[in-house]
């Protein structure tokens, strides 16, 4: 995952997009407008890009992509700049540890395995995320939690209802609950995740269990807002999650 660490903020100069030369502000955009290709359409696209803050706009592609719809590619100089020093975002604060460090930490501090229960909840049938984090195989060479001596990982799979997940977590005396939400429409992933937290609280589990949320549309900030301890988005590796769990559970 992308971490905006505080050291990035030392550059006090506002950030502008970097294309060919520093501060040239070059960006590309692609979009579809509901108009057939024409000279007028091209001008419409140019003005559309300008309204997004681009100057010296070049419309490099104009092609019909369906009846009455045109696909455009535009280049231009963005006049916008952001000041990184003025940005405050919550981030997962724990360090990423090596496998040996995780094993040693849990063995010394805890002296037992950390029980992790994970599932794709609600109607979500896509286990690719939870499998990548929990299963032995892991993802792109980074092995999953099952491969660590420090963890006892249970992957409940897809389409698990919140109450089933809580029930299993209680039965297994879980230290950590890991929820994956991949497919979502109209924010149903948020409602479902929030409902899980409410259910955990109702069962008195919330304070005893570390609760984590993951998925391509999840970030740490959103997870905190929904009442989780941490959120893991696109690009998260099993070792990121393993480090967070080991550090957090051992610190409790």
């Amino acid at each position, binding site marked *: 995952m992308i971490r905006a660490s505080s050291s990035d903020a030392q550059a006090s100069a506002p950030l502008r997009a970097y294309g060919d030369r520093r501060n040239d502000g070059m960006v590309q955009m692609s979009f579809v407008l509901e108009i057939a290709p024409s000279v007028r359409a091209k001008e419409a696209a140019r003005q559309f890009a300008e309204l997004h803050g681009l100057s010296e706009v070049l419309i490099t592609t104009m092609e019909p992509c369906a009846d009455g719809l045109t*696909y455009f590619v535009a280049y231009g100089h963005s006049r916008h700049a952001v000041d990184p020093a003025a940005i405050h975002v919550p981030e997962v604060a724990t360090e990423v540890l090596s496998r040996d460090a995780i094993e040693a930490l849990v063995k010394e501090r805890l002296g037992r395995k950390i029980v992790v229960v994970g599932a794709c909840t609600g109607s979500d049938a896509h286990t690719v995320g939870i499998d990548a984090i929990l299963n032995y195989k892991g993802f792109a060479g980074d092995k999953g939690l099952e491969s660590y001596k420090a963890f006892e990982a249970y992957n409940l799979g897809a389409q698990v209802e919140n109450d089933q997940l809580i029930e299993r977590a209680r039965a297994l005396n879980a230290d950590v609950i890991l929820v994956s939400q991949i497919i979502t429409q109209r924010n149903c992933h948020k409602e479902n995740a929030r409902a899980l937290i409410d259910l955990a609280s109702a069962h008195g589990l919330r304070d005893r269990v570390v609760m984590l949320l993951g998925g*391509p549309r999840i970030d740490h900030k959103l997870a905190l807002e929904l009442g989780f301890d941490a959120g893991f988005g696109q*690009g998260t590796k099993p070792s990121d999650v393993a480090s967070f769990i080991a550090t957090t559970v051992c610190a409790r």
Partner: protein
Amino acid sequence: MLTVPMDAAKVADCRSLAASVARDVQTYVDAHTSVGVERTTLRALGVEGADDQGAPLVNLLVDRYAAAGLLDRGIATFIGRSLLAGAADAQDAAERLAFGPALDDPSQGPGAPEARQALESLTQRAIERIDQARDTRERTKARLQAGPAPLKYVIVATGNIFDDALQAKAAAFAGADIVAVIRATAQSLLDYVPHGATTEGYGGTFATQENFRIIRQATDEASEKHQRYIFQTNYSSGLCMSEIAWMGAVERLDMLLNDAMYGILFRDINPCRNFIDQYAARRIIARSKIIINTGEDNYLTTADAVEKAHTVLASQFLNEAFAKTAGVQEAYIGLGHAYEIDPSIENSFLLELAQAQLIRQVFPDHPIKWMPPTKFKTGDIFQSHVHDAMFNLVGITTHQSIELLGMFSEAIHNPMVMDRYLSLKSARYVFSTARALGDEISIRPDGLIAQRAVDVLNQAHELLAQVASEGMWKAIERGAFADVKRSTTGGKGYKGVFQKHANYINPWMTALEGGS
């Protein structure tokens, strides 16, 4: 000409092992029925509609007779008896049986032969409806002609059937040959088919008969407009597999995603229920000459594509055997596989090429369906576009029949109109620029590609031999496919399975089996 070494005797042995596995399962299937199969029979006999709560009449009736322990006679028994007792038609009979004060008692009055006879004209009419839809499709296809292989397959998934219709037309405009409407998430677990047109769905659009009609009309219009036959695709899978096969047949769909084992492995549907339902579904599909798309590509999303490539091939032999058992001809068995090897592995392209070519040679007359990379896609759309281009290159070089096009926004969102357009544009380019590549090149007989093909076939053969010796039920129980383990009595839908009574009748299914 590109070929990989293939031991024909070993391939023949794989087929006979798979056939023995399918035969063993079929003895179980022949002795059982399910609520899904019985509902399908009702629909075929002409029962339609739903109550004010949206519960389909076919469900109300089947559930009533299942709860009474009478479904083992076959629901046709009761429809036939009701007709003999004066019901005007199947609809009237179904309403009397579902809502009448008393249950029908099959131990009194007309027996199975009389009931069967009473259903003769309805049975014939059901078969005619399939045949007419099929003949209309075949005529249109002959007149308009499909595009060149690989047929370019794209998906629409807005959740609203009317938006899907617009997107389908846009896809046809951009060069698509096949449009699939992705189903709403988890519809496979519903033990009923929703009724009517739908405009809300998560992750896709509900498969309903009315939705099929709406989207078929849109692709018909697109076919005429572009003077190119556009195929329409949906899902015959899950707990309503056979009902949806019927709907697809009469609403003139061209393809159905339909797999002998997918529901068991990936939706935790009970194996018994699944095998019973897939057989009935495939009997309908065989009659209507719909092309099935099997789901072996999914294996590689849970299991590793390098280590478990042979499970895909083994499963294809099994899917073929099950399909043939149900009367589906090779030209309609669209076996699936996928480009899912970790792209960071050196020479992974060669391994993909080996597998794709091997499958092409093992199943030369089958409309093989080649699926794009998904597992290792990230949010980097530019890299993703290149990844898809490599996939397209294997597709054209190895002469795949149907290619589901990759989307650069895979792993981000449902395809937008622009995503689909760029995907089609790039596929058109690769297919055209490398059209005859596979006819021009040959590979080293002692090289990496050849060796990989040999290894995969050997391993598939070993796996099939093991499955044949232990039986399908045991193989599924121990996780032989996709690393997923399922028990024979576990999973969803088992209570909808019934052993047939000695006097069970299902004249419509019998007619499909007889091919008359």
